[in-house]
């Protein structure tokens, strides 16, 4: 049994939204009771669309946002108890936008060296060596050390972000849409790089993405989120070959593979989009579900796992 890197139990995160001067505040349940485990060496993909809570969940797994309730354990310790510097040595992020993830006023070298400085490394020579090593590791020529972010292309900036994340050799890397903002030809380079680094440095990845083709290529396990809950989890092959939750099916159905002989799929989801502040009763997916049954609007489904395939849907309850 592989070592459990992250163990999240019943995690919830609420935001207070003010509804104007006279209507008081309302609770937005961005993440609503999520259970998730991540084992060492895995590449877990968190998949979902706007408003599903995947970014909020990722921030909680990074320790950047406290939970409203529930526990997150990092290598056995509750994440809230892990000291800031130790947390930084264990989990690191890579963000989506290579144009806003680098401080425009700092040089590349100083951006990549920051994690070391924060950890207290004082020797400038060893820092420089590590920086150059890491730059080569991610495919950046070390002479770019003195360049500024605005002088680099999108792909190069993303490599800088990767270098910064890896300079202290963390164990877990949380990637939030790491290639969505990049061109197709650059995306493949970054994906290949991420795969290589995972083998080389024995990393565990949590990848947030809405691009299912990328997910299928790089992830070992996939968790599908909808309106703050995880509605299905399975190994990648199983999920793509045998999706169980109607939302997962609609999602996979909507993936546009470059096949000119196929037309545009009809995922039958309807035009109405749920409002996270005012979620539907019972199963939150029922208004858009092609297989909705009468009791779906009244009772929320209970999740069931079978041979590592978890799904939360009344269709599978006995």
């Amino acid at each position, binding site marked *: 049994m592989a070592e459990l890197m992250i163990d999240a139990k019943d995690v919830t995160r609420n935001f207070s939204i003010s509804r104007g001067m006279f209507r008081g505040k309302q609770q937005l349940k961005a993440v609503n009771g999520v259970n998730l485990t991540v084992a060492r060496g895995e590449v877990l993909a968190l998949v979902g*669309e*706007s408003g599903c809570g995947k970014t909020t969940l990722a921030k909680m797994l990074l320790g950047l946002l406290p939970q409203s309730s529930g526990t997150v354990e990092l290598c056995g310790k509750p994440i809230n108890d892990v000291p800031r510097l130790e947390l930084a040595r264990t989990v690191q992020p890579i963000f989506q936008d290579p144009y806003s993830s680098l401080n425009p006023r700092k040089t590349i070298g100083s951006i990549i060296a920051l994690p070391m400085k924060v950890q207290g490394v004082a020797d400038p020579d060893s820092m420089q060596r590590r920086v150059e090593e890491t730059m080569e590791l991610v495919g950046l020529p070390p002479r770019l050390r003195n360049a500024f972010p605005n002088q680099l*292309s*999108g792909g190069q900036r993303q490599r800088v972000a990767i270098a910064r994340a890896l300079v202290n050799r963390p164990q877990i890397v949380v990637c939030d849409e790491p290639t969505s903002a990049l*061109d*197709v*030809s650059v*995306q*493949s*380079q970054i*994906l*290949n790089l991420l*795969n*290589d680094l995972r083998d080389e440095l024995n990393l565990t990845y949590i990848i947030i993405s*809405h*691009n*299912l*083709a*990328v997910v*299928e*290529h*790089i992830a070992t396990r996939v968790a599908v989120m909808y309106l703050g809950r995880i509605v299905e989890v399975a190994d*990648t092959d199983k999920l*793509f070959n045998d999706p169980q939750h109607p939302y997962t099916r*609609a*999602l996979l*159905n*909507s*993936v*546009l*593979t*470059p*096949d*000119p*002989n*196929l*037309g*545009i*799929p*009809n*995922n039958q*989801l309807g*035009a*109405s*989009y749920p409002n996270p502040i005012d979620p539907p009763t019972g199963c939150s997916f029922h208004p858009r579900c092609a297989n909705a049954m009468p009791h779906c609007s009244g009772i929320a489904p209970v999740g069931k796992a079978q041979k590592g395939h978890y799904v939360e849907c009344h269709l599978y309850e006995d």
Partner: protein
Amino acid sequence: MPDRVLEVKNLSVDIPLAEGVLHAVDDLNIYVDKGETLCIVGESGCGKSLTSLAIMDLLPKKAIRRLRQLDLAGTSILDYSEKQMSDIRGNKMGMIFQEPMTSLNPAFTIGNQMIETLHRHRTISGDEARDLAKRMLEKVGITAADQRLGQYPHQLSGGLRQRVMIAMTLLCEPELIIADEPTTALDVTIQAQILLLLKDLQNEFDMGLMLITHDLGVVARIATRVAVMYAGQIVEQGTAQQIFENPLHPYTRGLMRCIPVPGKTKRGTPLGSIPGMVPSLIGEFTGCRFADRCDMASDACRQSDISLRDPKGKTQAYRCIHDAKTLAKSEVA
């Protein structure tokens, strides 16, 4: 000759910069017929957005547009004044952009904006306009249309806003719709719905559709014909079948190798990639613009400009000195 909705000949766009003149679009020829969808596909910086802006005469002030011919449904709009162009835009030529939040005025209701568009281009009574707007909203799949007319853009989700944009575009029954990355900012499931809607409406109204995108999946599913752009030029064009089943230009072939395809690309194996970067287009450039990144490049490629050629007079054209057979045999796509 099928009804040609758009004919563009020899379009060039230059942008003067401090460092020199940027030749963003170079001698482009495209056309769109009634009822068909032309997709212009390329990566950032290839000039595809500037092409659409040039056709709509919405280029930034600094940019210089040169054209030999620009016909919309048979009428030349090449020398149209700003007033004449603004009469066409939103009327015979519909436009859909990527960010519906910036194309819709947040200060006015949906109904207000739709009715104003109608009044701008037609003489029509207020009640008739409202009725038409309501019917159009229903046509694009928006339920409770009456209610929606009174709502503001920020009260709608991204997908709904894009539907409203489409409805507004259709109000005046355009001959041509130009859509620039219309679904890039939308979720996957909504994207499929919007594209399906566009396709259905195009068939119903028999319009021409020019869709600009970087997403090859979208292109494959919706395009009748495809033009692949690289560094300001069209490097390959043909029907969707031709481009996806038998891509010829090394750049097109390279792009196809880069994308992961569930079921085809094996997990764990590295994806194909295109080494190098787009060259600078500032100042004069001779020869093939893809040469530095092409593993079939030779000195001959850099010596003189290469024009689009058309193997055996079929409609698939590509810009390369090598012949179709050699290209087809190069590294398996």
